[in-house]
């Protein structure tokens, strides 16, 4: 019988599952965290299992992580998203020592050692400035899709200063700028700069090593990534599926335990 294990990451915005068989990823899923969190867990898991035609009973061990980790009814163990992001990223990029995870409502800076274990971490405070939700609100204000933000901002030749990082105030600041005829790309460049500056502060708190990776949904925003790279003078490693790093880490823990 194959050794099949899974990791599930219930985040504030999206939920992810990764299934490993003999150390390799055989299935994954990503859905929006919805209605009932336990139900979300079931749906995400079912979706991934369907890919390989298996059932829950075929899994030997399941580790849950993320904000909703405690409510995953079928998990054997729960581990924090900090440890899981460290583990997942280490698996993909063994040389990476600093990780920035930018999720829906929070950002984390994590330092890891050569074994992929976290040695230090910092998280954002009670304000959602600079998180995925913040960008979503901005996208709505500019009537753009979240995927468009990054590429569009790269077209900007200059950027404007966005003074407020409060999602609500920034939204109206952005609306007002758009009304004044400032190009969307320029506004976005400003927003991304502001976010980069904020997360840079977080990174400084754990110390930045040259081998550095970004995970989470915002890692797919090339605008933020570019601004951050410019600030740090470093090239960021980004996995093809940066959002599933936490679930992957959870699955890797499951592989060790199960």
């Amino acid at each position: 019988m194959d050794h099949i294990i899974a990791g599930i990451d219930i985040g504030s915005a999206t939920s992810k599952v990764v299934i490993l068989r003999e150390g390799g990823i055989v299935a994954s899923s990503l859905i929006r965290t919805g209605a009932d969190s336990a139900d979300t867990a079931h749906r995400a898991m079912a979706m991934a299992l369907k890919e390989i035609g298996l059932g829950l009973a075929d899994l030997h061990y399941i580790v849950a992580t993320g904000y909703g980790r405690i409510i995953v009814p079928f998990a054997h163990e729960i581990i924090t998203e900090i440890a899981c992001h460290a583990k997942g990223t280490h698996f993909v990029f063994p040389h990476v020592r600093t990780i920035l995870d930018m999720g829906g409502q929070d950002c984390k800076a994590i330092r890891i050692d050569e074994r992929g274990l976290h040695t230090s971490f910092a998280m954002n405070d009670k304000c959602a400035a600079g998180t995925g939700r913040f960008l979503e609100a901005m996208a709505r204000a500019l009537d753009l899709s979240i995927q468009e933000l990054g590429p569009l901002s790269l077209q900007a030749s200059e950027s404007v200063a966005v003074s407020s990082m409060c999602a609500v105030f920034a939204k109206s600041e952005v609306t007002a700028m758009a009304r004044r005829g400032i190009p969307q790309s320029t506004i976005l460049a400003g927003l991304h700069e502001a976010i980069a500056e904020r997360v840079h502060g977080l990174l400084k708190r754990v110390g930045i090593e040259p081998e550095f990776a970004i995970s989470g949904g915002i890692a797919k925003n090339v605008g933020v990534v570019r601004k951050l790279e410019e600030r740090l003078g470093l090239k960021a490693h980004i996995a093809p599926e940066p959002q599933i790093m936490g679930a992957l880490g959870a699955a890797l823990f499951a592989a060790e335990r199960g």
Partner: protein
Amino acid sequence: MSIQQEQRIKTSKSKKSIQTATETWAFIKEDYANGHKGKAEGRPIAWSCAAMDKELYHCMGVLPFFPEQFAALSAVQRRGGTRDESVEKEAVRFARAAEQEDYASYLCGYQRVATGFVIESLRTGDWHDAPLGGMPKPDMIVTTSCVCDVRVKWFEDMAQRLNVPYFCMDRPERIFKGILSTPKEHEVDYYASQIEDCLTFIEEVTGTRYDPARLNECLDWAYKTNNVRQEILQLRKAVPSPMGCADGFGTMYPGMYQSGTKRCYDFYAKMRDELRERVEKGIGQIENERFRLLWYGLPTWYNMGIFNYFEKFGGVFVYEPAYNPDPWPPRRPEEPIREIAHRFLLRGTGMGNVVDSILHDCQEYKISGAVLSYLITCRPIVFPAVEISAALEKELGIPSVNLEGDLVDERLFSEGQVYTRLDAFAEQLLQRGPRA
């Protein structure tokens, strides 16, 4: 965040591992009852601060009350002593009253709560609608310039509002290398003069004459108490840890606020005996101690359960440097005032002194991780936090984690975020394996 609130991880209520700790509450209640009784009988009441030399009150027959301690009490209690969780904590009610008067929300929680209590009591005329019947109205307000600027300014502000005589004992700021050092002569002269002036001030307010013999009596008790407390600290270094930080903070009241009395001495003597027995029998806070933690800063008084949080991972809080005393130089009954000044000035107040002292404590107590309470409303606690964290990592390889919040205002505490950090920190410590 949402899901988490749904599944709120309830820490157990703060757990007392030692018997003596359960007696603190009776001690506090007795003091408040005595205060109210004394007030009715016309005995002088002083509002004062933790860093004050309490022996001065006991030798002058003054009943001292401490707004900081009152604020901590308000962080625990709800109005009317109810346990109904929909009733907000008294601390939140008072803090809000102060904020409505434009006291900034970044100000020390102790300050906002105590000032809010003054504002509310002056507004309603009812001084007893508060935990334990509130602090009796003061006849004098005495503070010191120790530790922070807020204490001076805040007490001055209360004196203005209450129209009550005010005195501040100014303590010289001392910055040097290391943790303890002999104070300079002119520093002792100055602080001794402050103590003398304070005694004169109390004489004027109360009409009681200062009697050096009486002060010596109080200092004898204080000295004996301090020796016992040093023994307790030695015992607390044992592995497994016989007593944790919840108890450490929970039992600081007598020593912090009633030093110089026999009942204070008795309290700690009993505690020492209990601890000695536990250490001899090898009884720890928990059965299988896997890692030992230090709590830097002041506690989150509204959530003392946090000190048990690591138990499920095999972690225990072993030591909290905040309120524990240094060893004292021998008694000098011929000049008791200079003796107080001298012992008070031994410890340095600079950033470097603070960092050095935490490094020292971590070694003494065999600490494997430190939880830094980032009191965002307390400058002296929060400023050194980054340096401490860096020094622990660099000098001793000890990791640390920080928790943002206030000491009494639970509105600034984000349970979900805090517990995720603590979980990740526990994982981090367990991954490292036992400390060599």
